[in-house]
């Protein structure tokens, strides 16, 4: 069991806010953290890793992590921008964490990187780099795997491949995993549970199905154009033209939610 009860004052783009998270996560769970930019998602991960300080309690498998240094926390971290050691080959990146050649070999084989093990990171594609970062994160056999938008820089095909590989490794090692993501499909495919952060507070917590289906009869989007009684709405990446019959005419750029149930 992992218990988190933390508080930290943040100075985001929208002014000062308080990050307040109180969570209990079962061992082996795959938790996705989602929410608008600046909601405190990455900060939460960084606090768990010990990269940032906070007030409160972090307890992992009955052991308090409050005064534990970054080095002693048993975590793996996958950064959005990879963070590979540029001076080391793929294999050396893994062995730097732990001199366990058998494990390195196994991880590289699982992620189909065996042929690239002697290459330097700068000669790899984004997807390959992120797979190396993923393997490196498992080298310590971590209790917690923390991933900060690991898939956001990748193209769709690469993304699906890496989703699979993350799931395979997650199953194999049974590592409790935290993943920050903006992408509903990533979360839906991978996570067993999802929390939604808004201005530092957890506003929704449940299975991906529960969390994302609550608004199934509603769609929200941004008003791009108003033409008399017709409006153009941007929903995700799609444009919807709707006839609008309401007392209050929406403003340009406003975010509105409409009921689609007939």
């Amino acid at each position: 069991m992992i218990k988190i009860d933390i508080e930290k004052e943040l100075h985001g783009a929208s002014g000062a806010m308080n990050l307040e998270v109180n969570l209990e996560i079962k061992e082996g769970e795959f938790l996705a953290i989602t929410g608008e930019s600046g909601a405190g998602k990455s900060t939460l991960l960084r606090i768990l890793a010990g990269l940032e300080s906070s007030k409160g309690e972090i307890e992992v498998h009955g052991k308090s992590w409050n005064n534990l240094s970054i080095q002693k926390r048993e975590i793996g971290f996958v950064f959005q921008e990879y963070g590979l050691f540029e001076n080391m080959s793929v294999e050396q990146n893994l062995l730097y964490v732990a001199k366990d050649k058998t494990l390195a070999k196994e991880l590289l084989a699982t992620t189909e990187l065996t042929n690239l093990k002697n290459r330097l990171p700068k000669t790899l594609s984004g997807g390959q780099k992120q797979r190396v970062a993923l393997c490196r994160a498992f080298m310590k056999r971590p209790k917690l795997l923390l991933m900060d938008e690991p898939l956001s820089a990748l193209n769709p095909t690469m993304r699906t491949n890496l989703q699979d590989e993350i799931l395979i490794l997650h199953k194999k090692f049974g590592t409790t995993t935290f993943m920050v993501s903006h992408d509903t499909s990533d979360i839906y495919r991978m996570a067993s549970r999802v929390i939604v952060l808004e201005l530092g507070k957890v506003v929704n917590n449940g299975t991906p199905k529960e969390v994302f289906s609550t608004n199934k009869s509603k769609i929200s989007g941004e008003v791009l154009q108003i033409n008399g009684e017709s409006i153009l709405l941007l929903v995700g990446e799609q444009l919807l033209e709707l006839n609008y019959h309401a007392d209050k005419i929406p403003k340009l750029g406003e975010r509105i939610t409409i009921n689609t149930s007939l």
Partner: protein
Amino acid sequence: MDDILITLKNLDFTPFILSFKLAGITTFILFFIALPVAWRLSQSRSKIKPIIESFISLPIVLPPSVLGFYLLTVFDGTALNFSFIGLVIASCIYSLPFMTQPLQSGFESLNRSMIEASYIAGKSQLITLFKVVIPNTKPAILTAIIITFAHTIGEFGVVLMIGGSIPNETKVASIAIYEMHDSMEYLSAHIYSAIMLLISFMVLLSVYIFNHKQKYFKGVS
């Protein structure tokens, strides 16, 4: 023409050797002093950081005579005044910013997640510095070393005040040129100056060529 040949033949090169010896020792010592300082500064978010940075950068703006005067006062009554060791100490202080600043900015420009990944891998600050930070900031380290070396060769004011002009001990090339001009040995002064000019240009050229190559290389990868 014969004049030049005779002057060249009789030219005393010890001031040059002394200049290089001083610059080499200063650079060597400063590297080990500036490395931990630059590393700590690059990682620090402390409020006193600007104070320390300003203090280290003082020799850039301070007239060398001011530094020389204070050092003479501190060295007073010791054997350090007008000695080679005194010169080394003075040069280390005078060239400190030229070593610290390139190192610090090199460390600061390093991808933060690389350093954090090393800590997460369980490695201490020291191991991270030697295994990750230094190997990935080689251009900055090379720039710092060459600039410090070149700057120490180019010293004049502090060297004049602290070292005086004792042959084979503190009479470095820049002082020798000054004295030659003073005693109207213009031909020797010309030759010395031309050598200094050439060395300085070559040093700067090598730094710029190296940096240019690094940038180009980074651009294609």
